Every structure is written in structure tokens, then in C-alpha cells.
């Protein structure tokens, strides 16, 4: 089961994906773009009644993003206005032209006139409206400028305007260029300007404060929710470097650069950026009086905590622990309970790598509730549920706990946690072997409208929960033999989580597991063997297990046994019960393959006991199947039939197609075996029903394309028909069997003795 929690690292700046810190105190500055907006506003006022209702509405909708958005080139602005109202665009352009090509006094006059819009008994603009505030801000900012600044603004306006003109002119010029000499001259100039131009592009337009903030918050939220939509790591870094070049005090950029370096798994630069960010933050924290000393100490604690998170992310657990200790110590010294809670959650995550620590977690949940930290509390509950599920606690209690925490989520609209909760439910249902429930939960998450989606405009978030759910979905489909659907889902996963992204490992593992299963079904063991290496790289335990299975399938019993014993001991040590049971089953299979059914029985019973204790229902029924098979071989088919009734229901309801087939096949075998002692009449009935069951098994095997099993079933069926004297059917089965038999290599295991 994939763990959902590891990736949730605390981040002081981002909550719900928005950059909150605005420590620098925005001061508005007049820029040429803003002047163009002012012109637009004044034209709008002047045009007044002439505008149609539709145009007016379009313009109003345009205004807000323009006022709040970043600066843009004049041509883009003009296009935007033109789309709403071509007439107005023309008049704005003319007024700007007049101002830019006129004198300084034109601009001064313009600003003088601006304040008129407030005056009068019925002013055009209300003072406290959005537009009014903007106007007043601008007027104030303009009045504050010194003479040289005013002059600079004017030249900037001229450049702004001329750039636009030039762009228009350039297109025409190129058409007229015919003179070869002139072309030469131009070429030379271009050549000279070549490297410089590149420079210019690199530092294209220093961003204004607002632009920069917008850019950062947008990228940060994209990084969190939908990495593929954010800028590529290299270009984002370039932008950030550019930003920092022009405004080295912009500390948030360092944080984003840290996040960006995390994306590409760059330890060095991410550490560098993180520490730089906190060094900067410490300054600003100290400067702002409201926080005083408190704010300064606070950032220190979180600095250490974040460093711990960073090391944890890169798998340096020892380093992370040291950093965490430091954070805890400082937080304790300054009585910061909130920070301590964060530390505690992290401590749990770290300790989890070493041993189970429910106590820590319970403590964390209690305290977090006490200090009113719903996010941490329910994160704790979720971790707790996860751990309890592995520890085999009662399922109803776990589901209750999840329900309670869900209440908390909806109350505080923690959409991220809702996603995680659903993903976790999917995983737990799968752990218990209830594939229908898992399927239902997975679909719920996928078709649910996220709370955040409304704001960001992204359809779905690209968080870990989605990756988990999609992976489970793929596997569920593959189990049912819908390989096309499964590969479709995997393809989607590949697109949404590109191979270098954080959660890509999840789908890589599932992809290989599915491929492995298919290869095993088809009997292409060499292919499966080649996949083992890939699986081992992503999950070592799973890899070893699969290796053993391949060895077993290749009849290398003693190697497989050795490997499985080793794995068993390891899994018992780390308390991975699910894997323990699976390993026990494989060992039992090894035993009965070597015809040691009596030795297999206690192993199977042990597995059964474990599976029932941890309520891993599906594994339990699989164990029962194995048990029944052993009993069949040991000559007590009646007993086998008895216990089969116990298992057949869950297998048919939740099982993989292959398991269903095996189960039905086994039932038929048992029926035949137990029919031996019946009266002839009863015997025929039993054989008839066995044939029906075999038909069902056949259809299951056909679904997953298991030719070997199919062949066995056919052989068996032919024998039954023969006994019943139905020659035609017998011949048909025999023919099919022969076809398959020619296709497949025969191997030594006697047909009747193979259960799987």
C-alpha cells in the first residue's frame, strides 16, 4: 500500500497553495502601463453614455484583471481593448500618442485633470470603488515623484509607446527591403547585436512588485497542485534568477527556487536556496515591528524544521533527525506549541522509518486538537488509521475514525485532506481485499469536484492522492483482465505525472507490477524476470518477492525457498503482515509442488490465522483455496469442498479473474473427487455440475489469456465427457486441448496436481 503522507511537508509560506507573505509592503509606482490604464479609464468616463450596454459590460469585466494584473506591452493591451470595443481602443491610442509625442506638460496636465473625476456633485467615479482607489493611488504616487523621476517616467512612457510603434513599423519595413546592400548592413548590425539581444531576452522586463508576487504565487500553487502546468524547472530557475537580479531582497523567490530545485532532486541548490530564504526572512521578520523579536525567533524555528523536511525528502534521515532535534529544542525554549506540533508530526514521519510509534502520533493528534490545528490533527488521524490498518485493528473503528476526520475536513474545507482521506479509504479497502469498495472510492475521488479547482481553474489537482487512486484503479482493471483500460489509465498517469516528477515512482511501480503479472500469466518468465530489477529499484521487498515467484515458476525450487525464507524473516521483523502472508502462501505452494502436502498444511494454517487476525479477507480466502487443494490431494475431497464454500464467495465477489478461474477449477476437481463414492445417479449429477464449473473457469482463464490453465481445464473436461460418454463434446475438447498443447511446451508437473 502506498503511503499518502510522506509528501506532506509543512510550508510556512504556502497554505492552500497561495503565497501569503507580503512582508515588503507594497507601494504603488506609476508605470507607463498604468498610465495607459489611466487613459483608458478617463476615456471610458468621457465616452460615457455612447457605449452600448454589451460593450460596457465587456469593458468592466476586462478592467479588473487589468488593474490587478501585471504590466503588459501596449500592443497586447490595445488588442485586449479592441476585442471589447474597437472604438475606445482607437481613442486611447490617439491620446497616448498625443501625450508621448507631445511635451512633458501634456503628461502633467493629464494628471491634473485626473483628480477632476472625483469632484462635482455627482462624480463619475466613487472614491472608494475599485477604480476610485486605483486612481487615487496613482495620483498620490505621481505627486510624490521628484522632478527627475517625473522626467524619467515621461521618457519611459515615450519608450513604451515607441516600442509599440516600432513593432507595427517593423512588419512593413521588412516587406520593402530589397536593396541588397542595405540588407548587408542590417545583417552586420544584427550580428553585432546577437549576443546582447540574448541578454536582453534573459532579463526581459524586470517585474514589478505585484507582477513578481503574482508570478511567484501562481508558480508555487502550480507546483503544488499541477506540476506539469508550471514552468519547466530550467526556465523557472532562469526567471527566478532574473527576478533576484533585479530585486535581491525578494526572499520568496528563494523559497520558490528551493521548491524548484526539489523538483529536479538537486540537494545542493535546494539547500542553498532554503537557507538563503530563511536568512532573508529573518531580516524582514526583525524589521517589522509588529512581530518584533517573536517573528524573528519564529522563522529560526521554522528554518530548522524546513531543513529537516528537506533532508527527509532526500532520504538523509540521520541529518533530518539532527535538524529536527534542533527545531524541537528551539521551539521548546520559546514555548511555541504550534511549531512543536509540526515538529511532532515530522518526528513521527521520521520515526516511522525506524519503528512504529503510535504513541507519538496519538499524542500529536491530541495536542493538535488542543491547539486548534485541524490540519495537523486530521493528518495525524490519517496516519494513525494507516498504521492501525497495518496493525490489524478492527476495521469498523478505523472507518469511524476516518469518517470523523472527514467531518473535520469538510468543516474547515481542507480539500487536500479530503482527497487524501478518500485515497486512503481506497487503499484500505484494497488491503482488506474488497475490490468493489476500493473501486467505488477511487471513482468517487476522480469524479469529485475539488474545492480548490474552482479557484485555480484547474480541472483536477495533481496531488499524490490522485496518483495513488489512479494506480489502484489501473491495477484493479488489470486484475479483471481489462488490460487495455489499465494501460489507458497508465498512459494518463504518465502524462499527468511526468517521469521526473515527485509521484512518478508510484505509477512506475504499478506499471511494472501489472506487466509482471501479465508476463507470468502468459508464461513468459524471462520477461517477468527482466521486470524484477525495475521493481526492486522502486520497492525492494516487492522485488525480492517477485524474484522468488519467478524462480518458483522456473522450477528452481531450492533458490526460491531460500529467498522466501529470508524475506519471511525480514517481513516479520518489519511487521509487514500482508507480505508475510503472501510469502507463507508461496512457501506452501513450494511445498505442495514438491508433493509435501503434509508440511504445507501447518504453513497454510499459520497464514490463515494471520490473515484472519488482520482481517485481510482476500488473502484469507486465497489461503483457504490452497488449503482445500492440499486436502484434495491428501484424499479428503469432502472436507475440501466444505471449506471451499467458505472461500468461494469472497473470491467470486472481489477476486482477480485468474483467482476466480482457479477457484472454480478447484471446485470442479473436488466435486469429481468426492463423486467417486456416490451412487451412479448422483455421480452423474455431480459430474455435470463439475463440467459447468469448468466452463466457468474456462471463461475466466480465457479472459486473462492463461493458456496453460486453459489447456488443463480442457483436458479435465474431456476426461469428464469421456466418463459420461458424450463423445462429441469430448472430441471437441480434445481437439482444443491438442491445439493448445502444440502451442505450449509441456512440462513435468502432472496435470492433476497443479492448482495454479
Amino acid at each position, binding site marked *: 500500500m502506498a503511503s499518502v503522507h510522506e509528501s506532506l511537508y509543512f510550508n510556512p509560506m504556502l497554505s492552500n497553495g497561495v503565497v501569503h507573505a507580503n512582508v515588503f509592503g507594497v507601494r504603488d509606482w506609476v508605470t507607463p502601463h498604468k498610465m495607459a490604464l489611466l487613459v483608458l479609464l478617463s476615456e471610458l468616463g468621457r465616452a460615457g453614455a455612447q457605449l452600448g450596454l454589451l460593450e460596457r459590460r465587456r469593458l468592466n469585466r476586462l478592467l479588473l484583471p487589468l488593474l490587478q494584473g501585471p504590466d503588459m506591452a501596449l500592443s497586447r493591451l490595445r488588442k485586449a481593448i479592441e476585442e471589447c470595443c474597437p472604438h475606445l481602443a482607437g481613442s486611447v491610442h490617439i491620446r497616448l500618442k498625443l501625450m508621448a509625442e507631445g511635451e512633458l506638460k501634456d503628461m502633467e496636465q493629464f494628471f491634473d485633470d485626473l483628480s477632476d473625476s472625483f469632484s462635482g456633485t455627482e462624480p463619475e467615479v466613487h472614491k472608494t470603488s475599485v477604480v476610485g482607489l486605483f486612481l487615487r493611488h496613482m495620483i498620490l504616487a505621481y505627486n510624490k515623484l521628484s522632478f527627475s523621476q517625473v522626467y524619467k517616467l515621461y521618457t519611459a512612457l515615450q519608450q513604451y509607446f515607441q516600442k509599440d510603434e516600432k513593432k507595427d513599423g517593423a512588419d512593413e519595413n521588412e516587406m520593402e527591403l530589397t536593396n541588397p546592400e542595405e540588407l548587408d548592413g542590417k545583417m552586420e548590425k544584427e550580428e*553585432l547585436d546577437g549576443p546582447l539581444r540574448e541578454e536582453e531576452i534573459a532579463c526581459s522586463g524586470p517585474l514589478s512588485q505585484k507582477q513578481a508576487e503574482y508570478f511567484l504565487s501562481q508558480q508555487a500553487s502550480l507546483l503544488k497542485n499541477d506540476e506539469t502546468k508550471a514552468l519547466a524547472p530550467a526556465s523557472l530557475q532562469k526567471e527566478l534568477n532574473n527576478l533576484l537580479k533585479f530585486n535581491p531582497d525578494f526572499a520568496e523567490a528563494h523559497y520558490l527556487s528551493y521548491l524548484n530545485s526539489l523538483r529536479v532532486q538537486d540537494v545542493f541548490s535546494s539547500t542553498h536556496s532554503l537557507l538563503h530564504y530563511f536568512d532573508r526572512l529573518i531580516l524582514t521578520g526583525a524589521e517589522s515591528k509588529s512581530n518584533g523579536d517573536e517573528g524573528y525567533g519564529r522563522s529560526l524555528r521554522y528554518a530548522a524544521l524546513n531543513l529537516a523536511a528537506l533532508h527527509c525528502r532526500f532520504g538523509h534521515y540521520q*541529518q533530518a533527525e539532527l535538524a529536527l532535534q534542533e527545531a524541537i529544542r528551539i521551539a521548546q525554549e520559546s514555548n511555541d506549541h504550534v511549531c512543536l506540533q509540526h515538529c511532532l508530526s515530522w518526528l513521527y514521519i521520521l520515526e516511522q522509518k525506524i519503528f512504529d510509534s503510535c504513541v507519538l502520533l496519538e499524542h500529536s493528534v491530541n495536542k493538535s486538537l488542543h491547539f486548534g490545528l485541524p490540519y495537523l490533527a486530521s493528518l495525524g488521524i490519517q496516519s494513525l488509521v494507516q498504521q492501525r490498518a497495518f496493525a490489524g485493528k478492527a476495521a469498523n473503528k478505523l472507518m469511524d475514525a476516518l469518517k470523523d476526520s472527514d467531518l473535520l475536513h469538510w468543516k474547515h474545507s481542507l480539500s487536500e485532506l479530503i482527497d487524501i482521506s478518500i485515497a486512503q479509504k481506497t487503499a484500505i479497502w484494497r488491503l482488506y481485499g474488497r475490490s468493489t469498495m476500493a473501486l467505488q472510492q477511487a471513482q468517487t475521488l476522480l469524479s469529485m469536484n475539488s474545492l480548490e479547482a474552482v479557484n485555480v481553474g484547474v480541472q483536477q489537482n495533481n496531488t499524490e492522492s490522485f496518483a495513488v487512486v489512479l494506480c489502484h484503479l489501473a491495477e484493479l482493471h488489470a486484475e479483471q483482465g481489462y488490460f487495455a483500460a489499465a494501460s489507458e489509465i497508465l498512459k494518463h498517469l504518465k502524462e499527468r505525472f511526468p517521469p521526473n516528477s515527485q509521484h512518478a515512482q508510484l505509477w512506475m511501480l504499478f506499471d511494472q507490477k501489472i506487466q509482471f503479472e501479465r508476463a507470468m500469466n502468459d508464461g513468459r518468465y524471462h520477461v517477468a524476470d527482466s521486470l524484477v530489477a525495475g521493481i526492486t529499484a522502486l520497492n525492494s521487498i516487492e522485488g525480492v518477492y517477485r524474484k522468488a515467484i519467478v524462480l518458483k515458476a522456473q522450477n528452481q525450487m531450492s533458490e526460491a525457498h531460500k529467498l522466501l525464507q529470508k524475506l519471511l524473516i525480514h517481513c516479520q521483523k518489519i511487521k509487514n503482515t500482508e507480505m508475510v502472508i503472501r510469502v507463507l502462501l508461496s512457501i506452501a505452494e513450494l511445498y505442495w509442488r514438491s508433493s509435501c502436502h503434509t508440511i504445507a498444511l501447518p504453513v497454510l494454517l499459520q497464514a490463515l490465522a494471520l490473515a484472519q487476525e488482520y482481517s485481510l479477507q482476500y488473502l484469507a480466502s486465497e489461503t483457504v483455496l490452497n488449503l482445500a487443494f492440499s486436502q484434495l490431494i491428501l484424499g479428503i475431497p469432502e472436507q475440501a469442498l466444505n471449506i471451499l464454500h467458505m472461500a468461494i464467495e469472497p473470491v467470486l465477489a472481489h477476486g482477480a479473474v485468474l483467482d476466480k478461474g482457479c477457484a472454480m477449477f478447484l471446485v470442479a476437481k473436488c466435486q469429481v473427487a468426492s463423486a467417486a463414492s456416490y451412487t451412479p445417479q448422483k455421480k452423474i449429477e455431480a459430474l455435470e455440475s463439475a463440467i459447468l464449473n469448468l466452463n466457468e473457469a474456462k471463461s475466466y482463464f480465457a479472459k486473462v489469456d492463461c493458456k496453460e490453465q486453459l489447456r488443463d481445464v480442457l483436458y479435465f473436461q474431456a476426461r469428464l465427457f469421456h466418463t459420461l460418454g458424450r463423445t462429441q463434446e469430448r472430441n471437441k475438447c480434445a481437439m482444443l486441448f491438442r491445439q493448445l498443447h502444440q502451442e505450449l511446451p509441456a512440462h513435468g508437473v502432472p496435470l492433476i496436481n497443479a492448482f495454479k
Partner: protein
Amino acid sequence: IGRAGAMAAAGMVAAAGGGDFSDLREIKKQLLSVAERSRERGLQHSGKWAAELAFALEPLPLSELPPPPVLTEEDARDLDAYTLAKSYFDLKEYDRAAYFLQGCKSQKAYFLYMYSRYLSGEKKKDDETVDSLGPLEKGQVKNEALRELRVELSKKHKAQELDGFGLYLYGVVLRKLDLVKEAIDVFVEAAHVLPLHWGAWLELCNLITDKEMLKFLSLPDTWMKEFFLAHIYTELQLIEEALQKYQSLIDAGFSKSTYIISQIAVAYHNIRDIDKALSIFNELRKQDPYRIENMDTFSNLLYVRSMKPELSYLAHNLCEIDKYRVETCCVIGNYYSLRSQHEKAALYFQRALKLNPRYLGAWTLMGHEYMEMKNTSAAIQAYRHAIEVNKRDYRAWYGLGQTYEILKMPFYCLYYYRRAHQLRPNDSRMLVALGECYEKLNQLVEAKKCYWRAYAVGDVEKMALVKLAKLHEQLNESEQAAQCYIKYIQDIYSCGEVVEHLEVSTAFRYLAQYYFKCKLWDEASACAQKCCAFNDTREEGKALLRQILQLRNQGETSSTDVAAPFFLPASLSANNTPTRRVSPLNLSSVTP
């Protein structure tokens, strides 16, 4: 006029071949003429450098004085404009100078024309920074003239019409545009065309960041190259090589050059040979009492040695000469810092930064002052600024580490100390600091490695061994602990310093007990006797002596031959000098 003309002009002063200092008169002639030519072009600093160096050589008789530069036809045509513009230029009216030089064709006038345009741009840039349009523009104020200058100069460069000075200006423009690679090429070319122009060499020094880069440069083989190499070795912290070069320059006849003397002093300062550096600086001040350059380094030395009266004298003296110089402010800052008036010190460092925002050292020093004032956040700010200006400023990294250490974040500061250590791999202070942090984090294996390494690279404060010994003691590795203490005592004694060293008594006490446990009575009693010489261990020493006496009397009689005390360095008892070898310890085993 083409390359030929430029070559002819350069040929007149073509420098003698590589490292050939046999003809000092010729060198002097070249220096005098290049000083004159630099001055004509307004390149004050290069002129000053050449003149200083020329002053160090024997005066020439009248007959051998270099003739005044020959005027060409073009020079004559531009003479009036040049004379007028030069006087404007000297009065810092650059735009005016450029205006009157428009259209001048002669090399000299053309250079002055371009140079004054460049300087005008720079001056405006500095002025602009004061009132810009908002914070977003703060970083982007740039010299507007640079682009035009680059286009024009590169055209001339392609046509090979630039002389040495022109190439130099072209290089400066490229560097200002952050086109480092191109700039290096152009500076190398400038050095080839006019090797005597120190400015080009100096710019190269600033652009070359490591030894590898230096190897791949093809430099002209002249005596100027020796000066360049010495200078760049100092910059790259290759002090041994630098000192060698300077020594050979002195041997060649430049013994009176204040430039070389100051450089040697700076080099000694860099390897922390404080006494040598101090004596050289004192000598320098005798020869050149009104010198302000490098005096900040001198004051650092005085500060380290806590020589209050000398520092005070220096501060007053410099203040009289010129109080609005960066170096003066720095000296005064150091002076206040030594007197523990840290607020005032910080004030003066701030002033230094106002005078020259690119003056690196002041940020770091200011950081130190804030640290003293316990204003950690301001200190962090200052250090960060220092790093921003120069990423290779190891003192700032070290200072940041110290700040966080004071804030009791030993793990956090590891990163900073590591950075500092990277920059100065052979500086024991960073290693000791790293070791202390590891010790606080209870990572004793790493700590041991750090201390051992610190000892191996030559420990300045002599504390690494004691710390190492204590670590061994803690880990119950008594054998190694004893070894470390012995080495430590040997070190202290071989220095010949009889200065009261705190840990000597501890060392002797441990050794006495160690030998006592090992039943080596002679050694034990020798150490115990030593213990009696210190106040804090006297009683223990006496008690131990009594015990030894008792046990000895019980046992056999001691051997009577008294060997040389084992703790004296071997060099004092025998003639084999102990060699310190740096064992290849893997310091980077820890993840960053």
C-alpha cells in the same frame, strides 16, 4: 591608421622578454613613457602604478630620458580639441569633453572620447540609483552608454583599429555587460598589444577565478607578466608562489617599490603570518607615510594583535590625511571595535559602504560588529550582503556559521561552516568550528576527523589537539588521548612560547594519570611534577607523586638513568624533525 600604426606606437615601448630584468634602465624608460601616455588618456590609476614603480628605480641621466612622444599629423589636427577636452575631462565634465572630441580621428583623442562617454555613463548610473522609479528599478539602473560603446568599439575591433588602450576600454565595456569570456579575450589581446598598461592586467586578475583558467591563457612573454602572476597568485590565495615571485622581483632591483612591499604584506596577512606582515607594514609606512591604500589590511593586523595604541595612532593619522576614504573609515571602524564601541564601529563601516558600495570587506566587518552587539539578525543581513557581493568571501560564510552557532543551532550552522571550509580547505579555524558543531551534535566520529585534519593542516590556535584528546578521553580511547596530549605539549614547547597556555595543565594531569595506570612510574612522576607547576592541578599532582612514591617503594627500585623528558619535542632532544603528514581523511563523507 591601422594595426601597423598601433604596433609602431607600441613598438617604441615594447617590453623586454620574459622575466628579463637585466636592463633596468630600459624598463625604467618604458615605465616613464607609459605613465605619461596613461596620464594623457586620463587613466590615472595605471599611470600612478607605473610612476610608482619607476620611482623605485635609479633615476636616469638627462640623455637617456625618453623623448616626448612623436606627434603624428592626425594628433596635430586634433590637438586643440584634445587639449580642451582633456581639461574638461580632468574637471569631471565628461559629456562636455565627449562633445568637443566628436569626430576626432587620432588614437589619443578617440580614446579620450570613448572613455569620457563611458565615465559619463557610469557617473549617471551612480546618480540614478539615488532616485529611481520604485524598487523594481533599483537593480536595473545600468550604464546606458555601454551598448552603444560596445557596438562602436566592436566595429573598430573587427577592423583592427584599436590600440592597446582602446582594447582595454573595449574589454572594460564587455565586462560591465557581463560578457566575461569575450572580455577576457580582449584583455589578453590588450596585454599583447600594450603589455606595459597595468590596467589591462589588473582587469584580467579580476576575471580569472581559478588556477585552471590561468593555465589556458596565452600571455605575452614580458617582464610585466611577472608582476601580473605575482598579483594573481595573491588573489587566488596561492601565497607561496606569490611570495616567491615578489622576492625575485625584489632581487631583480625593485626593492624600493612600495607597491611590491605592500603586496608582500598583504600576502603575509593572507597566510596569517601576522608578525611578518606587521613589520613589513611598519616599514611601508616609514617609506610612504601618507599612503592610505592597504591600510585597512594593516589595521586588521593591528586589531588581531590588539595593539590599541598603534591602531589609534594609525586611525588619527589617516583621519588627518583624508577622512573620506573607504580605508580610513575601515581603520576607524576597527579602532572602535577594538575599544568595544561596536555601535560606532558599525557606523563607520556603514560610511565606508556609502563611499564605495562595492567595497567587500566592510559588509563582513559590519557583520562582525553586529555579532558583538548581539544583533544577530542584522549580522545575518550584513553577511548575506557580503556573500551577495562576493560568493567566495569565506569570512562571511564563517560569520554566518558563528551567528547560528550563537543562536544554538549547531546543525544549521554546519552548512555555513562547510561552505567556508570549501573555500579555505587548509584553514584550521573552519575545521575546528566544524568539529565543535559535530561534537555538539554528538557525532564524535566526524568531530574527530575534523580536529585531526585541523591539526594536520597546521592549527593556528593550537586547540584542535586538546579537543581531539578530550574526545578520545570521552570515548575511552586512552592510548590515542595520551598520544594527542603528548603531541600537544610538544607543539607548545617547540613554539618556544612560555605563554601561559590554559590546557597544558590538563594535558599533564591526564598524562600523569595515564602513565600511572600503565605503571610507567618514571613518566608518571615527571608529569605529576609538571602538574605541580600549575595552580589548578597542584594538589592533584602532589597526591599522585605521593602515591607513586608509595607504590615504588613497595615494588622494585627504579632505574636510575634519566632519559630526556619524553614530552620535549624530538627536535630538541635529537636531530630528527617530526614531519607532519596530512593523512587522507575523508572529510566529505557526510552528506551536505
